[in-house]
């Protein structure tokens, strides 16, 4: 409690100092805008409904790309583990591709998929895919070999092994890294929008930049932060729910 009061006080004093500096003319408003102007602008966006289609576009691109990317990455991971002939080729290829800045693919994606949401989602996929892939490899390789033996001895055939052992172990790793993946998905969606789009928060930021409107750029940033914060809080609550089994304490029911 004391910490959050302190945090609020700190944030408030920074904002106050900023506002004051602009009003007194110590800082050029044309470059740094001011908290008051930014707040007013966000208020306008909300009041006129200007914000919602952009927010929805960014969220859609992010969520679709995230889901597809993780699924594809996990699927590819399973193929690499269980079909060694494929794995010998795919794994080093993925490692190399992972070192390439994915942004260089965007012009191609935009050419193929247009300037709408699909090209942003695809850019997100190219980033998140690797998280899903490497987490799947890690998850399966880290499984205790005795646990594998135990489940086999208990009578699990290959399909049951997948269902009871490999898939849950993978889901677990992917869920653990979900908050990181969401952050990456955001970066992908907004960068894509920034580079060429018709809608989305990245598009708003780009538009404001072209008009030399620092208040617009900063308002876009703040909206992004808020969206990320809301999603992250949701994920944290979800995580606390399903990972009851990881907490080592006994709670009576």
């Amino acid at each position: 409690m004391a910490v959050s009061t302190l945090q609020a006080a700190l944030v408030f004093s920074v904002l106050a100092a900023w506002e004051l500096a602009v009003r007194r003319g110590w800082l050029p408003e044309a470059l740094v805008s001011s908290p008051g102007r930014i707040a007013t602008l966000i208020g306008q966006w909300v009041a006129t409904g200007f914000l919602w289609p952009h927010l929805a576009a960014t969220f859609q691109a992010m969520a679709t790309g995230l889901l597809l990317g993780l699924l594809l990455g996990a699927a590819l991971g399973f193929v690499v583990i269980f079909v060694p002939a494929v794995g010998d080729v795919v794994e080093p290829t993925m490692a190399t591709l992972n070192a390439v800045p994915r942004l260089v693919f965007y012009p191609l994606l935009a050419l193929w998929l247009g300037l709408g949401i699909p090209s942003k989602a695809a850019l997100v996929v190219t980033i998140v895919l690797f998280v899903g892939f490497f987490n799947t490899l890690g998850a399966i390789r880290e499984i205790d070999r005795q646990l594998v033996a135990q489940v086999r001895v208990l009578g699990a055939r290959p399909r049951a092994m997948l269902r009871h052992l490999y898939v849950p172990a993978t889901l677990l790793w992917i869920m653990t890294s979900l908050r990181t993946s969401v952050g990456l998905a955001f970066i992908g969606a907004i960068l894509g929008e920034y580079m060429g789009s018709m809608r989305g928060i990245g598009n708003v930021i780009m538009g404001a930049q072209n008009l030399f409107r620092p208040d617009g750029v900063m308002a876009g940033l703040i909206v992004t932060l808020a969206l990320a914060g809301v999603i992250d809080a949701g994920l944290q609550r979800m995580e606390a729910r399903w990972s009851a089994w990881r907490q080592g304490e006994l709670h009576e029911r």
Partner: protein
Amino acid sequence: MSASLAAAAVPARQVSAAVELIAAGKVFETPAGTVPALRDVSFTAAVGEFVCVVGPSGCGKSTLLNLICGLARPSAGRIRIYGEIADGVQPERIGYVFQRDALLPWKTALENVMLPLVLRGVPAARARERATVWVQKVGLGGFEQHYPSQLSGGMRKRVALAMTMVYRPPIILMDEPFGALDVQTRNLMENELLALWAETGSTILFVTHDLEEAIALGDRIVVMTAAPGRVKAIYPVPLPRPRDVTEIRLSMEFMEIYRRIWGDLREEVMSAHARA
């Protein structure tokens, strides 16, 4: 369901040996060369018998169980299960309680115990019912909904035991199952195991490095040599049943048997030590 499963796994013709090892051997290929783990191991476990295998650390006891249950193949000799040459794991015939408890961390105690039943296509409601009975039998009533991480080592061991007993495999292999437990818990579990064994009539092959435990539990004791493991001698344990593992240790007959076997075992422990 379980009774009929177990019955189906045992061939109709009368066989007296549940497990039969005939000059079984195992060598491991390592980068450093060939390492023999077991050499010329022959003994049998009769149907319904409780056989304990004792030997110094590293004498290949775990390897022996892995061979019997089909997780590994013998490099030499043969292993017969109910008179048939074994090939691969045989979940309907052989259960295995590992040295470390291997539970699925994302399943509750109850769900872990249900797993072998679910794998056998037992309907969920029925599996839940039977698993609940076994969770209670191993003294974990009230902990059904706990995850393995929320249980103590002894409790996890009980879950592992229930997980194997619940589907009543006719043969049960146990690899130092109580090694990591404190003495009180251990004696408790040993008594529980004897009661469960008397009730199910399974054949049990119990590996331990603790001679006292072996005498307290077993009908016969197979003493192994230091690596590579060979059978040094086999002793009957003519102690009456039912036994209480804590009390039986105090009897004259127990001491007598202990003295006789320890003479053999001591040599092996010393030679294992000298090499290490």
